[in-house]
């Protein structure tokens, strides 16, 4: 996907000014947050389960190479090819090669974030292979001129029913429908033809299971099953950090993933796919490929940001983030939105390419509280800010401002004098009113709210006077 994270602020302003998006976000917020709150109550030992999930993920990431090797062996023993990709370009090259080798003209896809990271659809098109997104949300985005998703679980959460109705009418040349079951039926009819005619299926993977060489897919639509069982060739693309040791670990993580994501006890489909179609079996691919992708992950292993690799992509952090709730996911400018994206995007694409993202959070820690694998997201965001300062990536006036503030604040007499003047000046500016509508010193602040007027004397002044009195 094209990186637009450097335009975060502009993107956010556009999102704030978009009434359809605003209305959709408001609706979605309650749904995700409330449903999760109910669903986690079903687990008696929720905190202990979180801790266990965190341990499972840590165990893998601390010895990632060993677990990947184990996975590779197990998968190969069941007839799969395991390939490795360093970056997005390599993903594209490998998938196109596989497609060419097997004479593929059409590829049906279920959701894969890695394919978004790589911009795979464009590469397939360029190679003469038609990609068809089959997740309903992703399909809607694809027919809308390859619009980027706004959420990792609900990619079109920002769109209204009306917009989708228009889009279907235009694309399918059918009478306009606004009834959701009718719309999904129409999509299903269109997609069915694609499932049956595609030679290749491309999917992501929620987890890779080392002991069996399997991939686990967690979905709510039947498309994942079609994509992975109908075509002759199945390509799984995942990040290297997605591996977990055992099926039992999968069971633990599955108690948390759907509950954190959509507030479901379990998702509609959980598939554990192992190996190619064996003799006598009626479905499954003849050729199975795993493409395991680094794209910035290996460098995070062993770094102070390693905790982030535990992420199981549930989306709870974004659902609960006040900033995400206000501007939606596209503003974050890359594949992963919300707090997780604000950490991942700079880590995977470069600190300098996402200069605003680590700051696009109030550090309210709602994300850290809901994260099922206990990733300390606010701490990681703060650390990224520190890295930016170290590398002189922040604007000079901002760096100077904090230096100056610290310099003054470490000199009590100077600080006392400075603040005395400042509060008097502000009080004078307010001109008898309770708040100041426009303040040159804090233009951003007063763009959307007034600046309350200070009392006019500092505490230290008044306290000193009181002492004398």
């Amino acid at each position, binding site marked *: 996907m094209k990186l637009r994270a450097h335009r975060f602020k502009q993107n956010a302003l556009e999102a704030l000014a978009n009434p359809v998006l605003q209305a959709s976000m408001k609706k979605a917020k309650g749904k995700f947050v409330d449903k999760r709150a109910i669903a986690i109550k079903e687990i008696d030992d929720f905190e202990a389960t979180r801790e266990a999930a965190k341990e499972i993920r840590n165990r893998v990431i601390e010895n990632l190479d060993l677990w990947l090797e184990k996975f590779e062996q197990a998968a190969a023993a069941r007839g799969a090819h395991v390939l490795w990709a360093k970056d997005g370009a390599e993903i594209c090259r490998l998938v196109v090669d596989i497609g060419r080798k097997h004479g593929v003209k059409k590829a049906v896809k279920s959701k894969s974030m890695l394919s978004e990271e790589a911009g795979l659809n464009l590469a397939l098109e360029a190679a003469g292979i038609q990609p068809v997104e089959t997740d309903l949300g992703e399909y809607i985005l694809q027919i809308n001129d390859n619009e980027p998703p706004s959420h990792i679980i609900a990619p079109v959460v920002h769109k209204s029913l009306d917009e989708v109705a228009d889009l279907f009418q235009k694309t399918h040349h059918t009478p306009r429908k606004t009834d959701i079951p009718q719309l999904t039926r129409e999509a299903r009819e269109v997609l069915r033809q694609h499932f049956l005619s595609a030679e290749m299926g491309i999917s992501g993977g929620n987890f890779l299971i080392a002991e069996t060489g399997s991939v686990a897919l967690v979905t709510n639509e039947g498309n994942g099953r079609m994509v992975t069982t109908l075509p002759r060739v199945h390509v799984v693309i995942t990040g290297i950090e997605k591996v977990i040791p055992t099926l039992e670990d999968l069971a633990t993580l599955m108690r948390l993933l759907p509950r954190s994501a959509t507030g479901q006890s379990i998702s509609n489909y959980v598939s554990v796919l192992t190996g190619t179609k064996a003799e006598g079996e009626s479905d499954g691919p003849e050729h199975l490929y795993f493409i395991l992708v680094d794209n910035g992950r290996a460098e995070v292993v062993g770094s102070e940001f390693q905790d982030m690799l535990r992420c199981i992509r549930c989306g709870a952090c974004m659902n609960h983030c006040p900033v995400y709730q*206000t501007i939606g996911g596209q503003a974050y400018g890359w594949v992963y939105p919300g707090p997780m994206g604000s950490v991942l995007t700079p880590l995977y694409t470069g600190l300098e390419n996402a200069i605003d993202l680590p700051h696009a959070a*109030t550090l309210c*820690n709602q994300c850290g509280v809901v994260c099922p694998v206990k990733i300390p997201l606010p701490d990681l965001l*703060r650390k990224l800010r520190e890295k930016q300062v170290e590398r002189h990536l922040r604007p000079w006036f901002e760096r100077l401002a904090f230096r100056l503030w610290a310099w003054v604040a470490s000199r009590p007499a100077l600080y006392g004098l400075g603040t005395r003047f*400042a509060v008097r000046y502000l009080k004078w500016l307010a001109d008898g009113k309770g708040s100041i*509508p426009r303040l040159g010193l804090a233009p951003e602040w007063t763009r959307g709210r007034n600046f*309350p007027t200070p009392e006019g004397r*500092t505490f*230290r002044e008044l306290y000193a006077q009181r002492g004398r009195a």
Partner: protein
Amino acid sequence: MKVALFVTCLVDLMRPRIGFAAIELLEAAGCEVVVPASQTCCGQPAWNSGDRAAAALLAKKFIAEFEGFEYVVAPSGSCADHVRSEYPAILQDEPDWQARAVALASRVYELTDFLVNVAKLDNVPGSFAGRITYHDSCTGLRSLGIKAQPRALLAKLPDVELQEMNGAEECCGFGGTFSVKFGEISAAIAERKCANACATGAAAIVGGDLGCLLNIEGKLRRMGDESTQVLHIAEVLTAK
């Protein structure tokens, strides 16, 4: 009980009366209150903006000023938490300082937490008649577990009617420098908070962190609401 009051830089500049209210409450709880004269800022803005050097400078200053006291109290959950939770991390490369930070950490309290759990304040000196709603500031709530304490204190005022708002625990959009870096996003979040608070029909929105309160008040006034009061809990509890 000897208590050092950390006034916080925002209270010092913007609402000194909160500082005096805090002193009154602590004295009402039987504490001897000292206000170290050289105190300025705990350094939280610098730390949250990634400036470790500036944060460390102010952390050391704070430690030197306050480590001699049995207790340190601040009328702000986020500043209290900054000293408690962040100082040891800020000073991780200087073991001596870090040890001093750790030694100080457990003696630092947010005001209402201290009044309820340590000083066990019985008689609240203030009075307030009418309906209020309480905004739970993020850091105090999620890091220090401050939820019941302010409510317990407010319950001691016979004429206060507490009406909880929807999303009381949701962020108001202040976020320190966030509100200065991303004014519009921050204001949009504040708008939601104000709408939820006003829907309770409360005459006053009350909270424990001045940063959030200034944010909420600024948004209310911009929305044309000149009547809803926005008060620090110490002001309500002392009628200051």
